[in-house]
Structures are given as C-alpha cells and as structure tokens.
C-alpha cells in the first residue's frame, strides 16, 4: 500500500528549485540593497570611531570621564522617575479587570528599514478591530470592501468565517504558517503583557498629553532579542489607570521591524460564544476541521487571497 513514489532525485531537485525560484521572484532586490547600504552606512560610522588612531587617546580618556560623570548624574536623575514609572504600570496592571473584554483598534505601521507589510490575514492599511479576553481574541479585518472575521477560542483553536454557512477550524498543532504572523499580532493579553513589562523591561516616564501618563518600556539588556517585543509605549489614563493606547515595537536581532498600535475603544463583557466559531455561524453551518483538510486548505487560500 505504501508504494514508493517514483520520483527521481533530479525531479526532487527540480521541484525544490522551482519552489525556491518562485520565492526568489518575489524578492525586491533593489529595495533590499538600499536597506543593506543604509545598515552599512550606520555601522560604518561606528567602525570609524573604533579605528581612531592612538594620537586621540586622550580624547577617548576625556570622553570616558565625561561618560562616567554624566552616567552618575543620569542615574541620580532617572532613579526617581523609574520608580514612578514602575508604580504607574503597576496601577495600570491592577486596573485591568479580568472579567472584562477589551476592544482595540489596531494599526500596523511600516518602517522604512523593513519590507514587512504583514501577512495575508492582516496588512498595513487594513482597518482592524480586535476584541480580547486573555488568550481568546476575535478580530475583524476590513480591507477595501472585504471583511474578514477570525479568532482564537478558549482551547487556542484558530477559526475563520468564510460566510455564515461555512467556517474553518484549526487545532493548535495544525495552524498554517500563513496565520502565524497574524496570531503574533493579535495574541494580546494586556494583563500578561503588563506583568512581563514590569518584570523584564526598563521603565521610563515620558512627557505626555494632559490627563494621560506615558511610560516607555524597553527590554532589559541581559537577554538578547532574536525576535519579539523590543519596546512598549503605554498611555495610561491618569484617573482610571486604564491603558488607553499601546505602541508595541517588534524587533528582530535588535532591529525594529514593525510597530503595532493598539488603541482602546471599548471595554465590556462579551458572550463566550463571540470567541467561538459556532457563535459566528448559523446553527446549521458547515465547519471544516482536521477531517476535511483538503477543502479547508483551499478555503483558507480563498479566504486569504480575497
């Protein structure tokens, strides 16, 4: 029954070559070259500094003296605001009620240093509304006149609505690659995020608009970031301590690649079913799960290509 496929090594190589070539054709080499040149220009300045000849060593010594002096001054000046920032975020964390769902308007901001535009399920320019409760989320993406509704339920299953009669359901171990980026963006648990910010980030109070306190959180140096959240800027209501806006900076290898802004627009209790596929479909709707993988893949492709 398990008959071996009569594919020759050359055919395998040819298939791999075709897949790589198809991918290579989508590379914007010119833009990438510009980005590389920009990076090199920045690092070139650093190298120049390192290659300063010995004759200028006294300048370096003076610079070290000034750095140490200013470091001490900075420490004295910043210690109080840092403690203050910690208190602000702690208050904001305490104000995040577990029994409420939060609705954010989400904005993806492209950075000039990267080509990342988002994935098929969410892109820069989309109008995105996100409801979250812990790990659960429900996201509505409006692109031109198309609307896409999908989310994650209490079992961390990912679902998508094709129309009111058809839906897609993915168990955690079978989530397709094309959904991963969007998951990364929308898996926003504000309580967990503030916990981690308090634990793993350096906090500084920034000047902000009236009625708001702003804290910038930058990941501590002790752990190098391969991919994750480099910094978070939080705007917190002075009276209620509610987090009104989150600006999340996503990084790869210390370089910022994308900013995602979450603006709080509503807080209330949603029905549990709003986070479930069944709650967003008609009662007699067809659900394509693991057993109908082939149709599900086609529908997913259709959903993301629309």
């Amino acid at each position, binding site marked *: 029954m398990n*008959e*071996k*496929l*009569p*594919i020759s*090594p050359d055919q*395998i*190589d*040819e*298939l*791999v070559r*075709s*897949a*790589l070539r*198809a*991918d*290579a*054709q*989508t*590379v914007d*080499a*010119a833009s*990438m*070259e510009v980005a*590389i040149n920009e*990076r*090199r220009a920045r*690092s070139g300045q650093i190298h120049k500094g390192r290659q300063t000849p010995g004759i200028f060593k006294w300048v370096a010594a003076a610079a070290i003296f000034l750095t140490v002096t200013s470091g001490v001054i900075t420490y004295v000046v910043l210690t109080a605001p840092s403690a203050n920032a910690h208190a602000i975020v702690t208050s904001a964390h305490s104000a995040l009620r577990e029994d409420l769902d939060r609705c954010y308007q989400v904005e993806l901001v492209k950075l000039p240093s*990267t*080509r*990342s535009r*988002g*994935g098929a399920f969410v892109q820069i320019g989309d109008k995105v509304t996100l409801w979250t409760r812990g790990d659960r989320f429900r996201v509505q993406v409006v692109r031109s006149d198309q609307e896409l509704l999908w989310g994650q339920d209490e079992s961390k299953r990912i679902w998508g609505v094709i129309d009111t009669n058809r839906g897609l359901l993915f168990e955690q171990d079978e989530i397709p*690659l*094309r*959904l*991963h*980026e969007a*998951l*990364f*963006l929308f*898996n*926003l*648990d504000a309580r967990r*995020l503030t916990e981690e910010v308090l634990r*793993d980030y350096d906090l500084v109070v920034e000047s902000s608009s009236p009625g708001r306190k702003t804290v910038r959180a930058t990941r501590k140096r002790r*752990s190098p970031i*391969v*991919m*994750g*959240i480099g910094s978070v800027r939080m705007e917190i209501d002075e009276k209620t301590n509610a987090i009104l806006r989150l600006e*999340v900076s*996503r990084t*790869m*290898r210390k*370089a910022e*690649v994308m900013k995602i802004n979450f603006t709080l627009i509503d807080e209330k209790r949603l029905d549990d079913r709003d986070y479930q596929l069944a709650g967003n479909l008609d009662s007699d709707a067809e659900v394509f799960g693991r057993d109908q993988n082939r149709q599900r893949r086609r529908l997913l*492709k259709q959903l*993301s*290509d629309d």
Partner: protein
Amino acid sequence: MEAWITGALPDAVAYAASLMGDRGMGEDVVQDCMCRLLDHADRYDLPRDGRKLLFRSITNDCINRKTRRRETVSLSEMQFGNDAQREVPDPKSVRPVDRLIAQELNECVTAGLQTLPINQRSALELSSLGYKPREIAEILSMRPAQIRVLLCRARDAMATYLNTHLAIGGGRK
C-alpha cells in the same frame, strides 16, 4: 558590485527564508550576512567567490538562530510566518487553474522542506541551486561523503512527503 549584490539577493533570500521557515527572518539573515561580507569585501573576490561565501554565512547564521532559544513575551509566542509573499503567480502559467496547481505544488514542496532537519534542507536546496556535493561540503563545513548521505536522506524524505501530501503516483486509476 551592485550587479553582483542584486543578482545574489533573490536566491539568497529564498534559501534563507526556507531555512528559517519565515520570509521576514530570512531577509533579516541575508541583510546581516551581506553587510558582513561587504564590510570585508577587500579580502575576497566577490564576483567569483561571493555567492558561495554568502550561502555559507547564511547557513551558519540560520543554524545559529534556529538552535538559539527564542525569547518570548506574551505577544511573541508564534513564529513570523509571512508565507503569503511566497504565493506568487507562476508567470509561465496562463490559466488560473495552472497557476493554482503551481502554487499548490510549490506550497507543498516548501512545507515538505520544512519537515527536513536543517542540514538536510540546506544540502538539498544548495544542490537544487546547482552546487556540487564538494561545493556544498565547503559551504556546510562537512565532508563530501556526508553531503551525499544528507542529500540521499533529504530526497527520500521529500519523496515520501510528496507522495503522502500530493497523492500522486500511488497507483491510482
């Protein structure tokens, strides 16, 4: 030099994206490696050896990143799968159905490659890009005999994967 850079980038990105399983990270790796290579351009004859050096650097960087523990915070538990960019129309295909088939096939091959260990994947991809086992051995810092074993295992695994997922050649009537 510019021509060499723009000529080398597409294949390099496709290769790195496949090794990382992620286009964005692949681009990041290529940018890093290309910067390092260009910083030391005076040591090498890039038009002659640059491509091989670049692929070696990419391979090492990808392996390092894949084997390094990933930092996680609540927003970053998932990989950055930007594979939507890979699903480009095959310019040679005219009919939508042909395009769809080509996409499906490429998607399946890409998914199959992701199931291979990274050294098998890199060996197979380098082979498909035209490198001989001896050259792949240089890039991966291994012996040619080891490369031949890796290639053999990778092709077997890919054949099995394609057999399962494309449902072709299984004696259907």
